[in-house]
């Protein structure tokens, strides 16, 4: 089984710790991870802003970079959803525009192999107890694309519940969007900030030490809001919790 | 060019992607939804759902019906009651003569009806899952206006014969070219803070009598 890490551009650039945590976690579970260096970005920011044609080279690059791997693992719900939901659309539109099936084929080749991290753990590896230790109270915010586009369901919370020492605290209004939404956060900053402030208020009200998500892009918005509002809750990616052990805390 | 030609021409141009030889039936519609959610006791479910939306539900056998209707009119203090032309005469046989019977007349104005306290009708059928009674203007139901303007509606449902489980079971039994009124509880509004309040323009009191044959 050849497994590739798709670290995502946000993690690569801003949250390398998360990528390192994924590597550490998967290796602990006996998975040999590879990092195809030709990878860059899924193209979500371009695509969701309406620049579909700018996304196409990134679709090709993605398919090329991950050719030959059995599984592509992304520590991001929204990047995995971009590949799984939108790559086929990009392919179909290119075909409808009379540009052949190259992009559609590229999409079809990666869609079934692309997994968000918790999907890979639960569905492919079949584990929920990854042997982690994290002695903190944690509340979980299900990010929208993981929740609704991928249908992650209770995979993340099953993994968290199995973590030794971790106390999982319910988040009020958990399924409401945090207000990030990529360029939405800037184009409609007033609404985005109001959503973020409500989310931060709910998070703080749990009294948890940390808020956990499967998406560092949403986390950047949530964490930035919490920090600006002076909340003591710290944001943490699920990979960093699952990578933590009694010997090594992330 | 007529408005008709303009609109239909635009529709046809807009559908250039639809193959010329495609027929409507070529577009699949899977009807694998339930035709009934199989209420264990349709009459009980009907009663519960009617009551849930604040209809007042009563039960009687045929012999007790005239007395029950008389009591409901009396409790309400009704001095007049409008009836459709084909209402079984025995339904009002227990009601005292001093409660004025108003036959629905073609030349009666809405104002005339507004002066009437109550209306008594039968129905075409009732739907258990949704708590709905359906009127189709049949002889024991009359014109739509008589069940609309008076503030108190007593509707008699013959059970179990007139009760169907569900909307999919009801539609084939109804005749589309008759004027149909589906009633699920008394009039209501949620327009103020999305909070439901019963009683606006239609009859504010809906009493449904389930009569066992």
């Amino acid at each position, binding site marked *: 089984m050849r497994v*590739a890490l798709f670290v995502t551009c946000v993690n690569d650039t801003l949250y390398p710790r998360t*990528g390192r945590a994924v590597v550490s976690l998967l290796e602990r579970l006996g998975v040999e991870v590879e990092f195809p260096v030709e990878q860059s970005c899924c193209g979500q920011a371009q695509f969701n802003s*309406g620049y579909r044609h700018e996304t196409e080279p990134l679709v090709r690059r993605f398919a090329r970079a991950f050719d030959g791997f059995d599984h592509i693992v992304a520590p991001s719900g929204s990047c995995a959803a971009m590949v799984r939901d939108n790559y086929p659309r990009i392919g179909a539109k290119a075909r409808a525009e009379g540009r052949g099936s190259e992009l559609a084929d590229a999409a079809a080749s990666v869609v079934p192999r692309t997994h968000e991290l918790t999907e890979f753990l639960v569905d492919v590896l079949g584990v929920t107890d990854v042997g982690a230790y994290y002695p903190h109270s944690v509340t979980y915010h299900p990010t929208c694309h993981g929740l609704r586009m991928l249908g992650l369901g209770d995979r993340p919370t099953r993994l968290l519940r199995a973590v030794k020492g971790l106390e999982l605290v319910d988040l009020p209004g958990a399924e409401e*969007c945090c207000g990030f939404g990529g360029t939405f956060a800037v184009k409609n900053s007033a*609404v985005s900030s109001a959503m973020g402030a409500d989310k931060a208020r709910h998070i703080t009200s749990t009294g948890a030490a940390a808020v956990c998500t499967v998406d560092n892009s949403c986390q950047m918005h949530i964490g930035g809001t919490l920090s600006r509002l002076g909340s003591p809750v710290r944001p943490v990616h699920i990979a960093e919790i699952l990578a933590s052990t009694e010997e090594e805390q992330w | 060019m007529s408005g008709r030609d303009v609109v239909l021409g635009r529709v046809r141009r807009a559908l250039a992607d639809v193959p010329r030889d495609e027929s409507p039936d070529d577009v699949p519609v899977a009807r*694998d939804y339930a035709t009934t959610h199989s209420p264990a006791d349709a009459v009980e479910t009907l009663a519960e759902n009617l009551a849930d939306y604040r209809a007042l539900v009563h039960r009687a056998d045929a012999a007790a019906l005239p007395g029950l209707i008389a009591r409901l009119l009396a409790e309400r203090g009704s001095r007049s009651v409008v009836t459709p032309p084909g209402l079984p005469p025995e339904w009002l046989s227990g009601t005292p003569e001093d409660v004025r019977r108003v036959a629905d007349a073609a030349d009666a104005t809405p104002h005339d009806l507004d002066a009437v306290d109550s209306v008594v009708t039968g129905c075409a059928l009732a739907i258990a899952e949704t708590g709905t009674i359906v009127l189709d203007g049949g002889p024991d139901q009359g014109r739509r206006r008589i069940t609309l303007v008076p503030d108190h509606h007593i509707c008699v449902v013959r059970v179990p014969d007139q009760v169907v489980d569900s909307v999919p079971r009801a539609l084939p039994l109804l005749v589309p070219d008759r004027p149909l009124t589906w009633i699920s509880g008394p009039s209501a*509004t949620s327009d103020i803070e*999305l909070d439901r309040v019963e*009683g606006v323009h*239609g009859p504010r009191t809906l009493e449904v009598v389930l009569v066992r044959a």
Partner: protein
Amino acid sequence: MVGTYLGMPAFPEAARDAVRDERLRSNLTHATHTIRDKRAKAVAELPDWGRLRAAGAAIKDRTLRHLDHYLERLEESVTAAGGQVHWAADAREANRIVTRLVRETGEEEVVKVKSMATQEIGLNAALTAAGIRANETDLAELIVQLGDDLPSHILVPAIHRNRGEIRDIFAERMADWGRPAPEGLTDSPRDLAEAARLHLRQKFLNAKVGVSGANFMVAETGTMVVVESEGNGRMCLTLPETLISVVGIEKVVPTWRDLEVFLQLLPRSSTAERMNPYTSMWTGTTEGDGPRTFHLVLLDNGRTDTLADTVGRQALRCIRCSACLNVCPVYERAGGHAYGSAYPGPIGAILTPQLRGVASELDASLPYASSLCGACYEVCPVAIDIPEALVHLRERVVEGGEVTVRGTRTTVRPARGHAAERAAMRASRWALDHPGVLRAGQRVAGRARRLAPRRLPGPGRAWTDTRDIPALPAESFRDWWRRTREKPTRESGNGTKGAGR
């Protein structure tokens, strides 16, 4: 607030003002959360909801793909049942037809059932200009009309008003339109509903002309369907001598049987009821019962332009339930007026830019009025993939391209005001397509990270006004990987295997 959407600012500016309006925020949060939970319960009662939803979408798709066929069939059925069918290509034509039909009756007043189509075409203003008074009879529409306000919700047009505000509007304005509000009117919803009942009663009893829309039109039988709660619909549909229904062409469904799907989907999604209190169905005219004359005005007004777009077309499945508004976090905070049309919320954000085009700044801003969270798609009873349509319309805004405008195929240019964004997207894509460049950039940023300001200038301010920016790491993931795991670097290689920590 004046009674027109014309000249309203783009969504972000209008939304910014709404977000600051604490009373509005609290009214909306209260109302939308109430209905949200109720809807979830009403839907959960039906184990086959997913299959009903799929059937609803499929029936609408069948109809839309053969819309000409079904419209002709409908016209035939309605005419055979004694109705008269009129066709209006746009709002102006529809208003002209309705005005003429009312004038022909000799009446100067009409009673109206709440109708999105007549709101969309501005019928009330057109009638007023012709000396005809249009009385709204739905409670929420009455609140809006008395308050010289605009609707802000599809189902509950006065959702932005709380009970206290409604009391004040009734007390101050009812007398201008007819029977005044009772003395000592309280703000209890029951008393407010009673005041509306008394105010409108005389209007109903005297009405000679009713104006409505319709939720469904059955092609096979010519049957019109109106679902409602208060009984004002029944009043308007049965007491007047003349009934004029203005209905969008997409409201047709093929068969009588198809109603079994929509009459289950609509009430549960809309008012969260198993069934709404009243549903009226009529087919043409009936001797001795109801209006003697029935006119059906079939309205295009941008619908065929929407139909011409194979992705955007799905917006025409909409049955106006408003479930998407009630779950939308953006709607909850921005309010309905910010969307600048009769159709607010997520459905408005994809419908308005298709019905009206994206030429105005407001209309071009609507596809961006979403964080793409997908809650709208999840609750939509006819499975309109609103996020997909939003992204599709964003593409139209920034890239332009082929569209249909008033029936004519035309090529639109990219909207103005996106030049800087376009350049940034191109540049970022180029960098991302050259990992060597990306890596160089990461290294520069990593070295300069201590210089990063807490507050950014220019467009970045929109972020840092309310949110801190993350600290830049000293080393990107890719550099860490190379440093710690490496065999010799090989940029074109397929992958590099991990080799110890």
